[in-house]
């Protein structure tokens, strides 16, 4: 039975091609031991094994990694607390609680009316499907390529807003502070804000010294 294995394959693959019959006599003869050739030649190949964690292979650009909450160029947060990300999430991994910005008491975190006061992503639930970043209307929420998210306890895998917020880039002023004077919320989205203004810097200086003296 072992000598009649090949039912006629209905394609012109290497084994059924009559034109090749001459050269294939030898290969037919050695076919049962052709595997040794594969094994032998593999010895001279580059090994495909990845040496993680000694060498980390960079991910592809679109890789779905850890989330990040972004800031406008002047340091205000982009998140407007709209909860769209939480709505879109099929795994119910996101918890958002919005609150009103209030210029009077100096509590302005984002341009516009609202900001995300509480923001949590539960990485025990998250399936990295990226529906949240597709839902976010302000590019407040993005996914980075960071993938080392394992931990040894559950509590630490619920990331809070301070862990998710993007670090302050040079020139940015940490929120809260007022919006750029004379600009509206939509100007932020149209890319008209490029960095903090002297007025904002002054406000932050005054405000932080206030706080310090109050302490």
């Amino acid at each position, binding site marked *: 039975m072992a000598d009649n*294995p090949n039912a*006629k394959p*209905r*394609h012109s693959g290497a084994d059924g091609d009559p034109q090749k019959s001459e050269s294939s006599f030898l290969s037919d003869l050695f076919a049962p031991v052709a595997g040794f050739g594969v094994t032998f030649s593999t010895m001279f190949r580059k090994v495909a094994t990845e040496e993680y964690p000694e060498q980390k292979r960079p991910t592809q650009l*679109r890789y779905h990694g850890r989330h990040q909450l972004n800031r406008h160029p002047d340091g205000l947060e982009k998140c407007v607390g*709209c909860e769209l990300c939480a709505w879109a999430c099929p795994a119910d991994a996101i918890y958002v609680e919005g609150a009103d910005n209030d210029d009077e008491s100096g509590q302005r975190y984002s341009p516009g009316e609202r900001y995300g006061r509480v923001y949590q992503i539960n990485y025990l639930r998250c399936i990295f499907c990226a529906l949240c970043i597709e839902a976010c209307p302000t590019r407040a929420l993005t996914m*980075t390529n960071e993938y080392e998210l394992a931990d040894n306890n559950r509590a630490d895998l619920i990331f809070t807003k301070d862990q998710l917020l993007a670090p302050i880039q040079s020139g940015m002023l940490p929120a809260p502070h007022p919006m750029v004077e004379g600009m509206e919320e939509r100007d932020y989205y149209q890319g008209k804000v490029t960095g903090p203004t002297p007025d904002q810097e002054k406000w932050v200086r005054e405000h932080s010294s206030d706080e310090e003296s109050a302490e």
Partner: protein
Amino acid sequence: MTTHTNSAHTAGSDAFGASTPGDVDADTPVLNAVGGDWDDLVDEAAAMHEERIVVNMGPQHPSTHGVLRLILELDGETVTEARAGIGYLHTGIEKNMEFRTWTQGVTFCTRMDYVMPLFNEAVYCLAVEKALGITDQIPERANVIRVLMMELNRAASHLVAIATGGMEMGATTVMTIGFRERERILEVFEMVSGLRMNNNYIRPGGVAQDIPAGCIDKVREMVPLVHKGTKEIEDLLNENPILKARTVDVGYLDLTGCIALGATGPILRSAGLPYDLRKADPYCGYETYDFEVITRDTCDSYAKLRNRLDEIHESLKIVDQCIERLDKNPGPVMVEDKKIAWPAQMSVGGDGQGNSLDHIREIMGESMESLIHHFKLVTEGFRVPPGQAYVAIESPKGELGCHVVSDGGTRPYRAHFRDPSFNNLQAVAAMSEGGSVADVIIAVASIDPVMGGVDR
């Protein structure tokens, strides 16, 4: 055990549910092998003069393809009866989908048969599109991308089938080569969709985003390498006397058996019937691609293995054609209808991947209407008119069907999948009874069931 299963036992099946009614009499001695000294047990069994042994293979057995439980009745080394026990990986995916929007459903169904996620997504989206009546409006480019991804996935799935099958026979080199080649394909998936598995890439109405720059070159580079790697597996296996001794005439299921049991895919085609839904009932424009349906007629595990190997080459042939088309024809990848199309426009920047700044400017800075659309689609989703639709596609394992029922709402009233692994698994009994225990492994490997898909 609940009372009603107990009453079922009185009808003639044993505690394993393994026996057919009537073949267990009340005074058959039962020997339970739990702990203790094996020799004692053997002596005891010998003393009872009872040759028949029921063995549970799995659900935690390395060679049963995940959590498949095989209940084997042995007479010596011969399997007299074999039954598959399933349900150890039930995840409630179909039920969960009833509580999520149509778009979110993709993230669930992609996890059913995790070795062929893109087929799960594709069949679900095709069914939703059919229920919506927008099948004709899917942009050409989206269809080509779907075919590209599916065919790459088919190759990857077959590579896994062969690799794990080889491992179960003790051929670990086959395993390492198979996974090495699959890795090349997964890299393309990661590049296109951001994920290697469970991609959430094909969406109702099109695909999530266009393929990235450089993808076409990468695929062009990869395809010959996978051809070569597959050739290496062929060199290792095709004429290998050990492999042939173990697979030829083993796991035999003829055409009548296949038809009676509803077996499809490489199993059916190993029995000589060239039934392939890509040809029989084309979808996504498969009628415009040039490829062969691979058949053999020896009905055994060897034929199934060879079919899979040949199908990898055929799939890569289709991939080449897709790449040609994608290179030439740019275009949209999502339906035009703004009431259905998922609104995201993604881009990658220094801050990671998120909605592109152009899209943000439009919805937040310029057009109130776009913003309302965006909000509505994300929070509520689109509505599918009341009715139902069934679509079947040719997955690596066979006919994968999706039946969606809508009551007119934004969520499925019911989404059901005909997973090929589930139906094919029925053939275990027919393929392994009468053979030896070692042949059961080969038979199961040649069915290539993935329990995530079987149990859903």
